């Protein structure tokens, strides 16, 4: 049921792909691009590897270049038919990677891939039926043998893998044709590719155990090591070509789930899988190396034993032969070799053998059969039955009796696979074999391997669980954290856009207000003045006409002019406020030119501009050396003009005014102080003074109540700040902090 849903979702995904890529994958597109590039380079290099190996396999059939097709002379080379299949599949895949193929070429490629699949499937079938289909006789009519393994013939395992690989390539090709099933075909191809990779890896690992493991006793052709390597690479090409979204790769792809993070279960499974895989690989390699080492050790041991026994027997036989000449004189029937043999048999009675299955066998050839002379450890018969010389049994002994010295893995007289050292005994025309059952060597490896695997699995599970136990809370915390952050960022972005709109609205309102609200004021003031003119005219007319004006006089002289004066002064005040608002809105919009400011220069300019007022107020102004700061010169000028203006405006009339401007650097900021001995600000008012239109003493002096508001606005735009210290009737200190040049670094 769930799978059904998955398939449906995949289909949806395929249809909505452009949409999806637009929305959810936009963020990860850079990452995806990197991934695609990686996949492409892996594909191309693996593909090239496959083709090169196949070409070398072909070349090896040219006399003298034998080693090219096989990494060791004891290993079978790749069959020519295999090499051809590799070259065809590799070329198709290469064409697919490098360019989008045309319809005709897709048809051609598909036909070739299908043909390879069918051919290799027939090859496998032929093996199971037990009939060679003789496809390859056309390529290499007279094939050779390596041991008893025929070479230059495709192995059934190779055929099986070619069937899979051909189908996978076919699926990848179909993807270009049918867009509806693009995703599912990708999954199919990717999975088949994985199967090819896994199987070839298993064959490769098996070679690590030594070729006997594969070549063994059977006459079936195993997959060549080079073939396994080529399949490994071909599988990789198929998997990476199946696309980032296909099953095998998407398992590893975490970015796909960036919106919906991998579930803990999925993570656990993936981690366990990877760990188990890694452990298995490491164990396989280690066991393989140890096994080879053990086999070699045993081989050497057996060979040494066999040789020393043979030499010993020869020595005894020679001694017997020497002494027999004297004895022969006395006893005609005396046979030296017989006496040697009986001595050996006698000695052997007291020696059962080595290890659990290890033993010596001694035999001679009698016509077409091998006659064993020693009692054998295995089997109950006193005297072992002779073995036919042409049979498969007693292979080591056959070697020894043929005068060959060496080691072999083969069947002994019982039909058991043994590791044996064979040595001819020259003097008596005997053969001696020291052998040990292969199972005796294998069993501990198998047992320890299984034990180690079980332990490793346990450790991996415990380790993974532990890892999860430790990491899960962290991951969960990170996840919730990131989710929270994401939410917060979204909220902030929303707020920020809202704020921007609001700000724009506000700017607009201020602009419109200061613009349109002034319009009526022009009329109010203008027509009030017109009324004043009219009143004057009226007054003059009354004076002219001598109409008694006792009752009208106060109206014309006082009531109406007073009313008009109030109207006009209010209009004027309102105009001042509106002008101030406009100024504020403009200073908030002014563009900034941040530069290093020489404050001594700037303050002297500010003071110059207010020279008249300073002289008029009779203020004693002192300015100390000022550190530079970073800001917009025009705006900073405005700040200090306003502060100086305030200081001048709120001087105490009772005492001579004194204003001091000083500066220092504190905490990497330039802090300036404008200090006066004016009326000061009560503690309760100190925060209000920075508010818009707040005026300390509305009745006294002029001003819009905007000076400090503008100062605050400018400083916030220049990353500066302002604060005040003041004692009523003693004076105020306004501090301005701005970034120093040190912040620049």
């Amino acid at each position: 049921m769930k799978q059904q849903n998955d398939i449906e979702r995949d289909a949806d995904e395929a249809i909505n792909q452009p949409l999806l890529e637009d929305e959810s994958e936009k963020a990860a597109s850079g990452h995806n691009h990197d991934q695609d590039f990686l996949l492409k380079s892996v594909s191309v290099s693996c593909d090239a590897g496959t083709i090169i190996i196949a070409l070398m396999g072909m070349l090896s059939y040219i006399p003298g270049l034998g080693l090219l097709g096989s990494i060791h002379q004891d290993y079978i080379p790749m069959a020519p038919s295999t090499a051809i299949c590799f070259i065809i599949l590799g070329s198709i895949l290469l064409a697919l990677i490098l360019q989008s193929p045309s319809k005709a070429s897709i048809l051609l490629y598909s036909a070739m891939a299908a043909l390879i699949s069918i051919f290799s499937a027939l090859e496998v079938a032929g093996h199971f039926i037990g009939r060679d289909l003789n496809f390859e006789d056309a390529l290499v009519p007279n094939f050779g043998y390596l041991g008893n393994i025929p070479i230059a013939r495709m192995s059934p395992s190779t055929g099986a893998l070619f069937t899979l690989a051909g189908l996978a390539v076919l699926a990848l090709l179909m993807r270009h044709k049918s867009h509806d099933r693009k995703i599912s075909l990708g999954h199919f191809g990717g999975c088949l590719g994985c199967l090819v990779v896994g199987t070839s890896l298993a064959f490769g690992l098996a070679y690590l155990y030594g070729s006997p493991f594969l070549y063994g006793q059977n006459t079936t052709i195993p997959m060549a090591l080079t073939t396994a390597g080529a399949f490994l690479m071909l599988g990789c090409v198929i998997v990476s070509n199946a696309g980032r979204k296909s099953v095998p790769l998407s398992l590893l792809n975490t970015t796909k789930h960036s919106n919906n993070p991998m579930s803990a279960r999925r993570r656990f499974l993936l981690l366990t899988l990877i760990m188990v895989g890694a452990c298995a690989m490491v164990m396989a390699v280690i066991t393989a190396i140890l096994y080879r080492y053990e086999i070699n050790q045993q081989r050497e041991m057996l060979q040494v034993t066999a040789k020393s026994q043979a030499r010993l027997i020869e020595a005894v036989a020679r001694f017997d032969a020497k002494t027999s000449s004297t004895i022969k004189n006395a006893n005609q029937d005396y046979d030296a070799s017989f006496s040697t043999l009986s001595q050996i048999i006698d000695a052997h009675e007291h020696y059962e053998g080595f290890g659990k299955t290890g033993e010596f066998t001694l035999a001679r050839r009698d016509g077409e059969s091998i006659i064993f002379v020693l009692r054998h450890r295995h089997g109950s018969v006193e005297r072992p039955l002779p073995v036919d010389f042409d049979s498969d049994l007693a292979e080591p002994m056959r070697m020894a009796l043929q005068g060959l010295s060496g080691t072999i893995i083969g069947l002994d007289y019982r039909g058991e696979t043994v590791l044996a050292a064979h040595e001819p005994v020259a003097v008596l025309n005997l053969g001696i074999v020291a052998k040990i059952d292969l199972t005796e060597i294998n069993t501990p490896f198998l047992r320890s391997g299984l034990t180690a695997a079980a332990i490793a699995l346990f450790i991996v599970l415990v380790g993974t669980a532990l890892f999860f136990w430790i990491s899960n809370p962290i991951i969960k915390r990170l996840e919730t954290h990131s989710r929270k952050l994401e939410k917060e960022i979204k909220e902030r972005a929303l707020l920020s856009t809202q704020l921007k709109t609001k700000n724009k609205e506000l700017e607009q309102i201020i602009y419109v207000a200061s613009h349109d609200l002034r319009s009526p004021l022009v009329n109010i003031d203008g027509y009030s003045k017109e009324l004043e003119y009219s009143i004057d005219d009226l007054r003059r007319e009354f004076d002219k006409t001598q109409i008694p004006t006792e009752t009208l006089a106060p109206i014309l002289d006082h009531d109406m002019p007073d009313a008009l004066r109030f109207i006009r002064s209010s209009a004027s005040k309102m105009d001042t406020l509106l002008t101030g608002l406009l100024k504020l809105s403009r200073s908030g919009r002014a563009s900034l030119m941040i530069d290093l400011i020489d404050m001594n220069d700037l303050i002297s300019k500010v003071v110059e501009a207010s020279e008249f007022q300073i002289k008029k107020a009779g203020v004693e102004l002192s300015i100390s050396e000022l550190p530079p700061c970073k800001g917009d010169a025009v705006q900073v000028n405005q700040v200090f003009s306003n502060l100086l203006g305030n200081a001048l405006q709120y001087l105490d009339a009772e005492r001579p005014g004194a204003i001091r401007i000083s500066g220092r650097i504190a905490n990497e900021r330039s802090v300036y102080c404008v200090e006066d001995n004016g009326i000061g600000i009560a503690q309760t008012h100190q925060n209000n003074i920075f508010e818009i239109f707040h005026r300390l003493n509305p009745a006294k002096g002029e001003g819009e109540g905007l000076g400090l508001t503008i100062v605050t606005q400018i400083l916030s735009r220049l990353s500066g700040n302002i604060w005040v210290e003041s004692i009523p009737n003693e004076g105020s200190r306004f501090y301005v902090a701005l970034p120093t040049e040190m912040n620049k670094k």
Partner: protein
Amino acid sequence: MNEIIGDTRMNHEVVILVAEDDEGHAGLIKKNLIRAGLVNDLQHFKDGQEILDFLFKKGDGPHRQSGVSYVLLLDIRMPKVGGTQVLEQVKADADLHRMPVIMITTTNDPREVEQCHNLGCSNYITKPVNYTDFVNAIRQLGLFLSVVEIPKINGISTV
């Protein structure tokens, strides 16, 4: 060319066009121009569209006449078509672009002033709320009009 052909009219024969949506402002301008001693004809237009119709001889309203000198007092904020748009169209027209245009506006926003000057206005006057300032401004305008040679527009007849 046309100035030579046509009569050189006296400056008081210049017609003052006032494009101003606020009737009050228009009235004040009129009153003060008269008080300042200007006796020229004065035509009032209530919005940007009206003045454009007049200048470009469109619609049912009055149309400008050939061979008459005009000076345009233009408010920036007007319904339908704004003052800057009117200025733009006037300055883009081959016949009209030499007509003096004086912007009369409530704001002295430097950006707006700069924009108008870039478009080619002859003068820019902020409507001061303070009456005396306003009178001074209008007087200056009167002085300006009496000094400046106002070109006549002969419109289509020259084409």
